[in-house]
């Protein structure tokens, strides 16, 4: 199966202390919120994210192949009374 490189950009604000993403069981190391991973294509994958910080802290994620957006998390929020947030999203490459 062919692979395609997906470039991720992760942005945290309002008190995010740390954030991490993975696709399936592969972590995507990030430097200054940016990281890349090669994924099998055509195939459906799961984006997973975790983050820690203040209640109300917000995270956004965008994954692109070239100039095409393949997955986007517009805003994930740590709810009141919590210090961690996490989520998952299907996407196709």
């Amino acid at each position: 199966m062919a692979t395609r490189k997906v470039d991720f950009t992760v942005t945290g604000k309002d008190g995010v202390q740390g954030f991490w993403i993975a696709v399936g069981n592969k972590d995507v190391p990030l430097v200054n919120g940016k990281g890349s991973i090669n994924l099998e294509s055509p195939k459906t994958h799961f984006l997973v994210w975790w983050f820690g910080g203040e209640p109300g802290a917000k995270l956004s994620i965008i994954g692109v192949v070239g100039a095409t957006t393949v997955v986007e998390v517009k805003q994930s929020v740590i709810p009141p009374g919590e210090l961690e947030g996490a989520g998952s999203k299907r996407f196709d490459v």
Partner: protein
Amino acid sequence: MIRHFVAALMTMGLLAMGLRAQQPTAKTLVGIVGQSTADRAVDGGLSSIQVQASTDDSNAMVKAARTRSFTDPDDPTRALSTSWSLTASAPLSKGGDATALLSGDGFPDSFTLKTKYTRYLLSGRRRPDFDNPDVVKKRDVICEELILGAIKKGVSPEDAKGLECDTGNVKKFIPERLEDHNALFWDDDRSHYLWGGSATVGHRQFKYLETDLTEKSTSKTPWGVSVFGATVPRGMDTLLTGGFEYRSKQKDADEKTLCPQTAGASQLECKTGPIGAPVDADEQLVYVEMRRLMLSRAMSLKVTYNFETEKLGLDLPVYVIPSSDSGLAGGIRVGWLETEGAQIGVFVTSSFKLFPN
């Protein structure tokens, strides 16, 4: 790329000084992004430095920073994030010699260069096994219930389908399923740990009067180091911090007005200013702090001991309004210094943050 970084550092001081007269603004100057390869997840290595320039009410700053997010190779439940920064700052206006005991970097009116390193560890992270159909099914059931729950609470079906399936929305629309959702991503036993340190060196020009009223100036090089460690223990909305700071610095001598002794003169020309060379004002501070969120209130208790003066200080702001739409917070502050006794007052500040900046 290293050339770019060196060039950025060389321009930082000039930029910081050039911004001294500007109004508070913030803008990104340069974003240098890491390289990637075609066959694996990529860490951009030392090639990724972000440079930003900004001003606040009292300083112009230029900052180079690098953050990394990764998993502990020896323990996949431990997620790590590191941040390093180098900041050059210059004062926007001169004046005063306030020396904060309990807060601030402690280098007023100085051009400073500061490097800071922080490491953040979140333990208890769990990677859901989405190769297992049972796990996928469990996840999908929760996400479908989330959509139905949002519709029940008045969200339009179209908007509900667009909601992220995450902790925030699960807690908001189907709080009874929060534990099941969290179980996909976290162990019960999870804690936050932070530790790090900083080193600062500055340059400050002092002007003063000799007793014969001649004006003199001298430059000094204040410097300091700090280390800290902090944790949010399991299940607690409380950050416990301990740290040490050493600052080698000076301050203006006491200000006085002196008049020359001129025999027979009908008018005296007097001068006011610090009399004598600047005096040492070193600080060796050790502190412990507890910051706690309590529903709609927050508080922070910080106890500091200064080994130079052998004095103890205490600061206890209680946030009656921990945050607001305007980003302001306020409450009642109790302060106590061994030298000055207790003080109680009302304060208005920026929103309460559990974690340090």
